[in-house]
């Protein structure tokens, strides 16, 4: 099994899409010694009871599809192993927000992984949603949104459009 930060972020975004979020905002802050990830959505949200159970492997909101939910449990394990920080907040009808911080100098912090393919998969997910991803580094922000990409390329569902999008991401050092 391989699980990088990009994989973890893909997983968190997938939760937002499954929660029927119409808007997802993802901010990735990279500093010299740390990396912080903040993701917020306006999906269904969770009750206090669900919030208290959401980090358990047994908990999933899609019981009709699968018996367990691994994503948040993996995130929790990764953060605890690497001495990081995570916070999760949610409210029914309002959405969910998650903050995760990793110390880059900790040997157990997972590798960053493949952000380009992460974005391709994220922007190609089924469902009607807008996602904006902001990369913050060296006091600069690199930002990309699904709406802007579709306005340029059309729907991101054909091999050609996905290839053009991927080439754009590689050319612009995402």
């Amino acid at each position: 099994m391989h699980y990088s930060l990009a994989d973890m972020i893909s997983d968190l975004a997938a939760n937002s899409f499954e929660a029927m979020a119409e808007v997802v905002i993802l901010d990735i802050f990279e500093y010299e010694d740390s990396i912080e990830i903040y993701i917020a959505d306006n999906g269904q949200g969770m009750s206090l009871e669900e919030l208290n159970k959401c980090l358990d492997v047994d908990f999933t909101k899609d019981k009709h599809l699968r018996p367990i939910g691994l994503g948040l449990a993996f995130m929790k394990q990764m953060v605890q192993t690497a001495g990081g920080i995570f916070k999760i907040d949610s409210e029914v009808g309002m959405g969910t927000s998650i903050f995760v911080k990793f110390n880059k100098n900790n040997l157990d912090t997972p590798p960053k992984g493949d952000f380009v393919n992460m974005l391709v998969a994220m922007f190609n997910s089924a469902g009607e949603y807008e996602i904006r991803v902001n990369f913050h580094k060296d006091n600069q922000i690199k930002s990309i949104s699904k709406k802007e990409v579709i306005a340029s390329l059309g729907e991101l569902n054909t091999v050609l459009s996905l290839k053009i999008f991927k080439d754009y991401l590689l050319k612009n050092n995402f």
Partner: protein
Amino acid sequence: MGTCGIAAGAKETMNAFIEELDKRGFSSVIVKQTGCMGACKLEPTVEIIMPDMPNIIYGKVSPKVAKDIVEKHILNKQLLDGHILDKPAIDIIKG
């Protein structure tokens, strides 16, 4: 992709499909990623829907198997044995 798919390498599989289809000129093929369908131990899973072929779900699709699916299933319209998870009953598959 669900957690199981991501952990099993589904991103690499999706990338392999895009690269191989592009290389062979299938630029208008639609590729769409979905979530977990409950067959976690068989991930990455891929469903192929195309004219003249039954809808097939393949399991344990590595990047290499993805390339085999493009060549055998999509290009040559032959089923790829050894990875089929779900297909219609034999009596309703024509030819």
